[in-house]
């Protein structure tokens, strides 16, 4: 049966915990002198990246290589894809090459779901348009769990461009599944209409939410939003929704600051905050490899995957 990781909404609580527990065991591998396991020998993982994202690509590449999988990097730039080859034809090519898993980053929401229709192998969503980025949410949850323990009842505040953020969508589903209480904070222009069915709260008032947050996750503000009247200016955004040292001081003791990167220092997050003790930003990168190893292991090692939704 075809199994994929397309959305964190497809993960049951057991699935999510299994990934995090597996990642916990695998985290030891990065501390060893031989950072390699033979588990996925002979399996082929294709990194199919239609958008530039060096960080995510090398994280998946390191994860696959540590499990001894063969890795093929397929960048859409300069390939037949940029000359108009369709996603379906690319899928058929990868199928013919015997890809056991395809890790896809694509600018179109839902592109991984479409790809999954055309492939026998597993599809891992590495970020699709303004939809989801499931492994980012998993590494965020993993990082939170390491710092704070069990996530049940933890209060997580996600701040920024929720409307266009795949990180926010994936985190809302996953953190809800894991029992955390999520509050989204954004200017009203950057919140989707009809949020009623999302399992989270929405607030426009960052300062009111801060003292009740165990985790504050800052989202990157894309430059193209700045000239599209979502907010008057970068300065005003920063003043109302940026995390500066003063706001950091209002957070409870032990609360942590997260950012999926890359950061706009001085915009959504002040440099002092990004570099503070409470910041987990560097850990998030390390944990990214571990969590992606866990996902690839659980999808690819057995005769059938242990996690993930059916297409």
């Amino acid at each position: 049966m075809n199994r994929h990781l397309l959305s964190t909404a497809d993960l049951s609580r057991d699935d999510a915990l299994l990934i995090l527990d597996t990642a916990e065991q695998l985290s030891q591998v990065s501390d060893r002198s031989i950072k390699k396991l033979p588990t996925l020998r002979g399996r082929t993982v294709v990194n199919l990246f239609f958008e530039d994202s060096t960080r995510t690509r090398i994280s998946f590449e390191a994860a696959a290589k540590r499990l001894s999988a063969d890795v093929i990097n397929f960048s859409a730039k300069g390939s037949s894809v940029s000359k108009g080859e369709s996603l379906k034809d690319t899928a058929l090519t990868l199928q013919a090459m015997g890809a056991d898993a395809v890790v896809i980053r694509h600018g179109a929401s839902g592109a991984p779901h479409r790809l999954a229709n055309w492939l026998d192998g597993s599809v891992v969503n590495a970020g699709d348009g303004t939809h989801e980025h499931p492994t980012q949410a998993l590494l965020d949850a993993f990082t939170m769990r390491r710092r704070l323990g069990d996530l049940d009842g933890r209060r997580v505040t996600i701040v920024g461009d929720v409307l266009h953020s795949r990180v926010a969508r994936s985190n809302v589903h996953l953190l809800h599944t894991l029992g955390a209480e999520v509050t989204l904070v954004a200017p009203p222009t950057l919140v989707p209409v009809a949020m009623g069915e999302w399992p989270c709260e929405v607030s426009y008032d960052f300062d009111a939410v801060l003292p009740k947050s165990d985790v504050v996750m800052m989202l990157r503000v894309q430059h193209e939003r700045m000239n599209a009247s979502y907010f008057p200016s970068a300065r005003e955004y920063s003043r109302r929704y940026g995390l500066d040292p003063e706001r950091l001081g209002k957070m409870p003791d032990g609360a942590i600051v997260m950012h999926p990167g890359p950061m706009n220092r001085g915009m959504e997050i002040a440099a002092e905050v990004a570099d503070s003790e409470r910041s987990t930003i560097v850990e998030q990168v390390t944990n990214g490899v571990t969590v992606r190893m866990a996902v690839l292991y659980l999808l690819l090692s057995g005769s059938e995957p242990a996690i993930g939704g059916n297409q």
Partner: protein
Amino acid sequence: MNVARNQARDDGPPAHDGERAVLEAPDINRALTRIAHEILERAKGPEKLLLLGIPTRGTFLARRLADRIEQVEGRPVATGSLDVTMYRDDLRLRPARALGRTDLPEDGVDGRIVVLVDDVLYSGRTVRAALDALNDLGRPKAVRLAVLVDRGHRELPIRADYVGKNLPTSRAETVRVCLAETDQRDAVLLRGGQR
């Protein structure tokens, strides 16, 4: 979910119909005590010893052996666990499975006399995987193998150094080791097949 099924196998009820005990709690107790003495004798002291259990029941057996050695020597002996799932050669024959714990001492395995501890020795493939896993973790001075039950039918050139009980079985039979830590009682149970 597939993994839940695996766990159900490990944590199964203490007794099935048609099972008979080939070892009871006192037998297991005596066997472990004897193995502990043999390990100690051959290693000429506990200093370099590292008892590494293979999860799940091997880990408990390693801990019991360590307790006995400590009682004799008055000094603690290093223990840990070594999950070999990622090194198994039968991963693709079954659904993906959850990982067990790997716990090693701070200073690793280099220069240690590692005693791998497992509940049942059968094909030898688990031990093969454990040797590969150890190889990626460092360079022990020596590696030895202790098992509670050796049921025969080896498929690889592997032999245990310390055996609680040699149990002639047919391939059609199942051997199940129950330990109080997970199964409410100590016993080795044999089921099925024709003797």
